[in-house]
């Protein structure tokens, strides 16, 4: 069964229709990449998955998005729980101006956890492949880390609250190539336990890390297929033109 199922999703910023009839089934324990030119709706769609767009006035969603079979836009759905289960990593690393430890413990403290914090922080940092680099500096400022380390810290902060799904919106666009490869390697490890959806402008990154890829174009999902197919033998001419760099 699909972990996330979007059915006939339309999304509006005021009068502007940013998504048109998008349907997609995102499989559990896979990396799904969303690609497409700027303004095509891929980030809007990503933010629909954990209702991040709710915070923007004048937005409206039609259609249905289900997580484990439950409609996340149903009135009874607990949005706070949704955001815990569906964590998000952003384009620029955004650690809080606190210590490394406090950054990772932040969500746990919000959830009221007071015991076993150190173990949870260690485990999250290990899962984010950062522990060995920071184990002796846990109480130093997070902003002293390199950008690549900061992004892995943000991933550790997401992992600490034990989500099912991690959404990543251009997570490597501010990072150098080595830090980028470190995050990509991390994604491959994390998908064993989590479901990952990544928006990327870097098509080669989509090709390297994802199992399935969706191409958005003018708010529509043009094609959604296994990544190998998208990059070797896509079904749609628009996909062919986009991945070969013949429109954009």
């Amino acid at each position: 069964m699909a972990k996330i199922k979007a059915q006939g999703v339309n999304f509006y910023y005021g009068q502007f229709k940013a998504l048109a009839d998008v349907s997609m089934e995102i499989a559990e324990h896979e990396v799904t990449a969303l690609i497409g030119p700027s303004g095509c709706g891929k980030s809007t769609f990503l933010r629909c998955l954990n209702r991040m767009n709710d915070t923007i006035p004048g937005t409206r969603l039609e259609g249905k998005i289900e997580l484990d079979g439950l409609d996340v836009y149903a009135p009874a759905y607990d949005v706070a729980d949704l955001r815990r289960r569906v964590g998000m990593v952003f384009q620029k690393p955004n650690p809080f101006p606190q210590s490394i430890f406090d950054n990772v413990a932040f969500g746990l403290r919000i959830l009221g956890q007071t015991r076993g914090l150190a173990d949870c922080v260690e485990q999250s940092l290990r899962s984010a492949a950062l522990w060995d680099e920071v184990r002796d500096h846990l109480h130093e400022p997070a902003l002293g880390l390199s950008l690549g380390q900061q992004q892995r810290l943000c991933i550790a902060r997401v992992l600490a609250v034990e989500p099912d799904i991690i959404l990543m919106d251009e997570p490597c666009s501010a990072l150098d190539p080595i830090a980028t490869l470190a995050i990509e390697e991390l994604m491959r490890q994390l998908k064993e336990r989590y479901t990952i959806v990544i928006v990327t402008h870097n098509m080669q990154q989509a090709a390297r890390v994802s199992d399935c890829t969706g191409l958005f174009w003018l708010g529509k999902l043009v094609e959604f297929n296994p990544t190998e197919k998208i990059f070797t033998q896509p079904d749609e001419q628009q996909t062919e033109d986009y991945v070969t760099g013949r429109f954009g």
Partner: protein
Amino acid sequence: MLETHHYRSTFDQRYAQARDDLLRMGQMVDNAIDRSIQALRARDQTLARQIIAEDLVINALRTTIEEECLVLIATQQPTASDLRATITAMFLTNEMERIADHANGIAKTVLRMGDEPLLKPLVDIPRMAEVARDMLRQSLDAFLARDIQAAHAIAARDAEIDHMYRAIFDELLAIMANDPKTITRATYLLWCGHNLERIGDRVTNIAERIVFMATGAREDLNE
């Protein structure tokens, strides 16, 4: 509708270079087959030696094209039809290098034959060579045009070559059975026929790759 742009001019230019080198290689290989039959007909050992020497040039060109494709993949990261075209160019250069080896094989046979007279007048062997060369030239056109129908038609012609090879084989076998003293000279002609039969198979492989390049599908055209 958004404006359509074309951002792959570097890929296109570099691919065009590899493709043009491939076509040049195809002409050299075609020429090598033609001259190997001329050498066989005229028992021209000088020409045979030239063919053998020029095979090194073809081998070097193959390395050049392979390198051009490797650089394309490493630096331009082609995808979809561009990736298939690049991989196909690499495959074709390999097949053509082997076809040249078969022409080389005929030239080497001419050297072995020395001054001995031909066992029989050459009839089917030059015909086989003509069909094989025609298939090769058409395959290069089909490669350029990404023409699937032409690729199928080219592969179908391999049956003509196979048919002529079987006829030569049966005829030479009968001659050898009748007079064992002819075995050496008959074997020379069998080698030549076998080289041409293999060229037909390799052009069929090229036709299969053209279908793959155009559609992404792998079809077995070797019946």
